[in-house]
């Protein structure tokens, strides 16, 4: 009971940006996820996973899925603490207060987007590989959470694959690596199944090549291919030779651009995109790899939450879905929010201003904790540090290098760097000063 209260309190603390806003924080894509589930409708670039999860709202209020998200984060942090020893309510709440005060964690948890599941992939893989202290039911629940967390966004597959590889390297045994790989395999199976049913194409990302091509074009690798292969190749893209939009977002999303002006849009364009992208990668593999690393480097440094707080396009996305599917009271709640009124960025500024500096400091501290833990043969803490730092890089590679660097992409996961120093401090405290351990049935299953 005490553990449940602690987890609930932690969830409430993480929801403070939504409370400040007067409504869960939303993004224009939140409207697409609502549409995805409520129609239902398959969207070419979005796995059919997060939309159905949002259905927790029961077409009454989006506060319900928000509550689900913050409670899940609090629960996963509680279990992470339990992996180090009997968890204490005081430590849990102190950790969450720190996360809520100085990191993007509460902003990401209060945002109704799949972003918050990226850090849960990291915690999930850690708990599966190093959570021997957890009870069987808890571990089963962690499997399910991790599987869903991987499946909600395609970039999470790359993060999970990197982490599973690390588990194999760190544990040097097949069993933990296979256990950690199980949610990844499950997520892949789920994606293949939903795409087979919804799009009639059994694949992880049937139209993902369009994103890859946009990135390669943004890096200047597509025009040379067109110059060499057109018009013989017979690609529609040949008509765009010499006038392709240089910006990958414009390439992808402009209504007058090459993707959307193709009859059939990105869905019909995907086959040609695969062909052109393959040709570009074969022609300039080293340049493509160098560009990917450079974009990854840029992405690692972009950790502000600001671009998720703006009201851009919300009336015709989230606002429209609320008017289509929700009671008028919910529409009024959204319309009255700081974000809908365009005031959230200014309201958030005093709280988020120092977050990049704080995260940089904690990233360095995490490295130091890693070195110290390795020196002291504290495998669990060293492994958590390695997984978190590697996940930050894998996330930057998956988002920055394959899409385009955006602040929101890295802010979602960078707050994890607070955990290694926090658990290091917890480990050095005398048992009596960690706060009273809540009696938990799963803590005894070792």
């Amino acid at each position, binding site marked *: 009971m005490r553990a449940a209260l602690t987890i609930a309190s932690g969830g409430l603390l993480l929801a403070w940006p939504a409370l400040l806003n007067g409504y869960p924080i939303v993004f224009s894509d939140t409207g697409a996820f609502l549409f995805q589930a409520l129609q239902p*409708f398959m969207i070419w670039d979005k796995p059919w996973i997060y939309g159905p999860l949002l259905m927790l709202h029961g077409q009454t209020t989006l506060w319900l899925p928000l509550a689900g998200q913050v409670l899940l984060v609090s629960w996963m942090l509680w279990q992470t603490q339990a992996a180090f020893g009997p968890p204490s309510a005081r430590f849990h709440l102190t950790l969450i207060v720190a996360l809520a005060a100085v990191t993007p964690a509460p902003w990401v948890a209060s945002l109704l987007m799949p972003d918050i599941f990226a850090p849960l992939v990291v915690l999930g893989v850690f708990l599966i590989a190093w959570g021997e202290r957890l009870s069987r039911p808890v571990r089963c629940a962690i499997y399910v959470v991790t599987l869903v967390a991987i499946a909600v966004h395609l970039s999470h597959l790359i993060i999970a694959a990197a982490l599973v590889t690390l588990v194999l390297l760190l544990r040097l045994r097949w069993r933990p690596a296979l256990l950690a790989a199980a949610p990844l395999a499950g997520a892949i199976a789920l994606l293949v199944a939903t795409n087979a049913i919804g799009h009639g194409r059994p694949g992880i990302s049937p139209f993902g090549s369009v994103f890859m091509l946009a990135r390669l074009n943004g890096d200047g690798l597509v025009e040379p291919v067109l110059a060499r292969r057109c018009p013989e190749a017979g690609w529609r893209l040949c008509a765009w030779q010499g006038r392709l939009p240089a910006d990958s977002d414009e390439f992808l999303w402009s*209504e007058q651009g090459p993707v959307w002006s193709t009859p059939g849009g990105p869905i019909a364009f995907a086959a040609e995109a695969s062909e052109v992208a393959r040709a570009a990668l074969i022609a300039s593999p080293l340049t493509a790899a160098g560009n990917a690393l450079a974009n990854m480097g840029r992405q690692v440094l972009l950790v502000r939450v600001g671009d998720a707080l703006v009201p851009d396009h919300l009336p*015709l996305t989230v606002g429209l879905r609320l008017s289509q599917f929700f009671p008028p009271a919910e529409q009024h709640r959204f319309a009255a929010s700081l974000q809908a009124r365009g005031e959230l960025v200014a309201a958030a500024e005093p709280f988020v201003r120092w977050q990049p500096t704080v995260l940089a400091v904690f990233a360095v501290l995490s490295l130091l904790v890693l070195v110290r833990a390795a020196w002291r043969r504290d495998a669990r803490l060293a492994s958590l540090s390695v997984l978190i730092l590697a996940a930050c890089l894998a996330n930057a590679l998956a988002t920055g290098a394959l899409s385009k660097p955006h602040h929101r992409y890295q802010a979602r996961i960078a707050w994890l760097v607070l955990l290694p120093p926090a658990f290091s401090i917890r480990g050095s405290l005398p048992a009596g000063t960690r706060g009273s351990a809540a009696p938990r049935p799963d803590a005894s299953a070792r």
Partner: protein
Amino acid sequence: MATIRVQTADFDIGAELARLTASRVDIGGIGAFVGTVRGGDVAELMLEHYPGMTERALAQIVARAEARWPLCGCTVIHRVGALKPGENIVLVLAASTHRQAALEATAFLIDWLKTDAPFWKKETHTDGSTAWVEAREGDEIATATWLAER
């Protein structure tokens, strides 16, 4: 305030008319257009779109119509998903104080919807073959005519 919706479900023309005119006494005429799936050798029409982006494009088209004619209200509802011949695809309603503005705005809206709204149509023919529908030259000419008339 215009009503703009993209949905898989069919629409009720009577209900939409009633919604448009509720508590209004300034409306003198309403132009209406209902697009339906033409049969012939088409067994099914699949309409694809991108939620959010499509509605933004529809809103821009409606804003152009509102800037051009004194409209009292306007409704644009477009269906997506798999549709059979005879089913409704699109509803356009334009209300104004005078019939000419209402009728012209309706024609303008549907012409621009055909060329500028990001929907993709995939036809499945009765012989089982499929093809994405290319933009028709006639549609482009219709929108060009509106531009020329400005």
